[in-house]
């Protein structure tokens, strides 16, 4: 089975929000909710300021707390390593939302099930990339199989330092970040 991961090369992100819009359109994400977001933070002391644009989404963790805390088995780790939700089994107890350190989940208004990024699994099955990756004009978001050494994600991760969000949570995320300062200019 492939080992799907996403690499977010922050060096190329321009904060255009095209990924957010594409995701909402592709997945019919309800108003006021997002499966992916671009967090903008400004750090430092004036005049030495640095802005970080960081795309965030479900990390499809190898040790997902949302899955281990789901009381009905509605949240599950599929064979390709992505974390998915069986909407019919979901009782809307919100334990997964509380358990996710990345705040990647929300309750779908009106229907009550927990919803989140599926890595556009329906597109992957058709041989396409996730909508956010396909639309990213700066090629900041890269998707692929980490077990394939020829894949772009493997090459990117081998040539640059990468990090994951909240490693202390012990979730072993599958979304990797290449930060601006990770490669010397």
């Amino acid at each position, binding site marked *: 089975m492939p080992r799907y991961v996403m690499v977010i090369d922050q060096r190329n992100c321009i904060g255009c*929000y095209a990924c*957010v819009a594409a995701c909402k359109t592709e997945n019919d994400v309800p108003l006021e909710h*997002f499966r992916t*977001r*671009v*967090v*903008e*933070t*400004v*750090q*430092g*002391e004036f005049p*030495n*300021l640095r802005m970080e644009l960081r795309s965030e989404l479900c990390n499809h963790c190898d040790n997902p*707390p949302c899955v*281990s*805390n*789901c*009381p*009905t*088995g*509605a949240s599950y780790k599929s064979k390709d390593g992505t974390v998915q939700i069986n909407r*019919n*089994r*979901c*009782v*809307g*107890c*919100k*334990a997964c*939302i*509380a*358990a*996710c*350190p990345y*705040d990647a989940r*929300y*309750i779908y208004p009106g229907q*009550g*099930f927990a919803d989140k990024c599926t890595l556009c699994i329906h597109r992957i099955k058709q041989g396409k990339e996730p909508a956010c990756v396909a639309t990213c004009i700066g090629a900041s978001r890269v998707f692929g199989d980490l077990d394939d050494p020829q894949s772009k994600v493997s090459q990117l991760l081998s040539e640059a330092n990468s990090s994951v969000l*909240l490693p*202390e*949570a*012990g979730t072993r995320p599958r979304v990797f970040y290449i930060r601006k300062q990770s490669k010397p200019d």
Partner: protein
Amino acid sequence: MEITITGVNAITYPSLHIWNWTVSVYLFCGGLAAGLLIMSAIANLRAGPANPEDRVDTVRAALLAPFVLMFGMFFIWLDLERHFNTYWFFLSFEPAAPMSWGGWGLGLGLPLSLAYALSNVSQEHRQWLRFDFLKELAAWLNPYLKPLAKIVFALGIFIGIYTGVLLSVLVARPLWNTPVLPIHCLVSALATGAAVIILIATRGSTQLFFTKINLWLITTDLILMVFDFLGHLTSGASHRESILPFFTYTSQYFVFGVAFVLIALLFPLALVSMLLCVKEGNKGELSGATRFRMKLSAVMVLAAAFIIRLAWVYAGQLTKLS
């Protein structure tokens, strides 16, 4: 270089609101039912062949417990977003999910606590039961009182600890993620159980006995709360920040500051009041005023225990790993 975050875009940043007061009511009622079951079970297991009139307060606690449990379960059911999918709790068992343990524990515990309640009804009091089948069931269950007491004792411990485990396993919420919380919840459950027995007891000696028990429980509760805060304070940055809502009187956190002040007032007040009552009770006859003060202290304990759960449920959701 000092790093300060000066801005976070609000457009796509999630504002987390997971659970509300219904969960607090559930945790409070679950703990209270656990406390009632444990206290009543201990009384039944330690007592010899007693006069039915001597057991009346224990019987009241046992009768009350399943209804308190049902009340709490109703509120957690209300909190579910998909009420009609509740059956999925009982079509699967997820050993790593505390809520799955809770679903099964409460699902099996409720009929057990009902059976225990009925087994407590002695022949002299069975005329109070409305339906004939209940009278027959009570007569059939009565010989199993002690085995059932052993089972509900374990059930009470399970429920009392579970109300804390439910929150403490969530690594993502630093305020909840502490091993002290389940023990704290169990002790608090016992204290609320004892408090309710003080309120419903008909005999002064029972009230005095449970006031003495509550003295120790409240003291333990306070010590555990201090350790809880100390544990957060001496832990990582996220844990240190997680207790800020209780000590930062800003507009965002003001309500948590008020909750902390109330808890810090109610518990010591109840403690002092109980100490005075015990002192007077040990001298001899209990006056009406002393019995009233014992009941007032019990109300303070219940109020503080509810405020703790309310504050913890809401404040925990404001905390996150950073």
